[in-house]
C-alpha cells in the first residue's frame, strides 16, 4: 500500500514541478534535481528489492533507514547550495545598490554645475 501511495505522490510532485517550469516560475536547472529524485523514488517503489540489496551492502538491517539517511544528506547539501546562491545574490545586490548611489551623486553634481552656468 505504502509503495502505491509513494508512487502517486511522486507523480503528483513531478507534475507540480513541471507545471512550475511551464509557468516560468522555476528555472530548468533547479528542476532537474527534483525530477531526478522523483524518478528514483518511483523506481524504488516499483522494485523495493533494489533498496534491500543496497541495504545489505551497507549492513543496514532496516532498508527505509538508508533511504532516510540519503535523503537527509542530499537535502543538507542542497541547503548549502541554496545558501551559496543567496550569498552571491546578496553581494550582487549590494554592488548594484552602491553603483546606483554613486550614479545618483554624479547626476546631481552635473545638474548643479549646469544650474550654476
Amino acid at each position: 500500500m505504502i509503495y502505491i501511495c509513494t508512487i502517486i505522490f511522486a507523480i503528483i510532485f513531478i507534475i507540480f514541478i513541471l507545471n512550475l517550469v511551464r509557468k516560468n516560475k522555476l528555472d530548468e536547472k533547479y528542476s532537474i534535481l527534483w525530477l531526478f529524485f522523483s524518478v528514483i523514488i518511483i523506481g524504488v517503489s516499483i522494485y523495493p528489492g533494489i533498496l534491500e540489496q543496497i541495504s545489505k551492502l551497507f549492513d543496514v538491517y532496516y532498508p527505509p533507514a538508508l533511504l532516510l539517511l540519503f535523503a537527509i544528506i542530499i537535502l543538507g547539501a542542497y541547503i548549502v547550495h541554496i545558501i551559496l546562491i543567496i550569498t552571491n545574490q546578496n553581494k550582487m545586490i549590494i554592488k548594484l545598490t552602491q553603483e546606483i548611489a554613486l550614479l545618483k551623486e554624479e547626476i546631481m553634481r552635473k545638474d548643479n554645475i549646469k544650474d550654476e552656468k
Partner: protein
Amino acid sequence: MKTIIIIPAYNEQETIKKVVNNIYEQYNDVDVAVINDGSTDNTLNEAKCNKKVIIIDLPCNLGIGGAMQTGYLYAYRNNYEIAIQVDADGQHDISYIKQMRNIIEHGQSNMVIGSRFIENTGYKQTFARMLGIKINSMIIKVLTKRRIYDITSGFRAVDRDIIKCFAKDYPYDYPEPATNMQMIIKGKNIKEIPVKMYNRTAGVSSISPLKSVKYMLKVTLSLFLMKIKKDV
C-alpha cells in the same frame, strides 16, 4: 593631499548637520561625503545643509559595511589620497583629524586608528562591551602578533593604498575589527593614537548592551575565519 571625510549615516537627523558643519568650520581643504544608508528619517535633507557636501544616497539600507564601502569606492574613483571615516552621531572629536592626516601625509603609517583605550579619556562603556573588546584585541594579538587596543573604533584615516583595498573588498559585518586584522595580515602599517570620544548625545548606538555579547562572539569567530580566508 586630497582628503575626503566619509560619514556613514543611518537615521542620524539630530546630529548629522552639526558634525558636517563642525568639519567645515575647522578644515577648509577637505571634502565631506555623507553616505545616507537608506535612512527613514530626515537625515538626507539635514545632510544637505552645506552645498559643498557630497551626498551619496543609497536606495536601501545596506548596513554599516556596505555603506562604508560605498564611500571608499567614491574615494577610490575620484582619486582621493586620504580617506577618514567619522561617525555621524557626533561621538568623534574631529579636531584629531589634523593629527591623523599628518601621520598619513608623512607616510608614517597606512592607517591611523583613533583609539579610546590608549589613554584614559573618560569614555564610558558597558562592562560586557569593554570585556569583549579586550578579549578580541587579545585574539588579534595572538593571531597576528600585533596589538590594537580599540578594535571597534570607527574613527580611522587611511591612505590611497588601503582606499584601494577597501573599495575592492570590505566586510559587510563587523567591518572595523575584521578590516584591522585584514590589513595587519597584508602587512600594512597601522598606528593608533589616543583620542577623546564623546558619549552619544542622540540616537541609539547600533549595538545595544544586550546584543553586545552576541556581537563580540561573532567578531571573535570572524577574526578566526579571517585568518584562514584566501586573499581576494
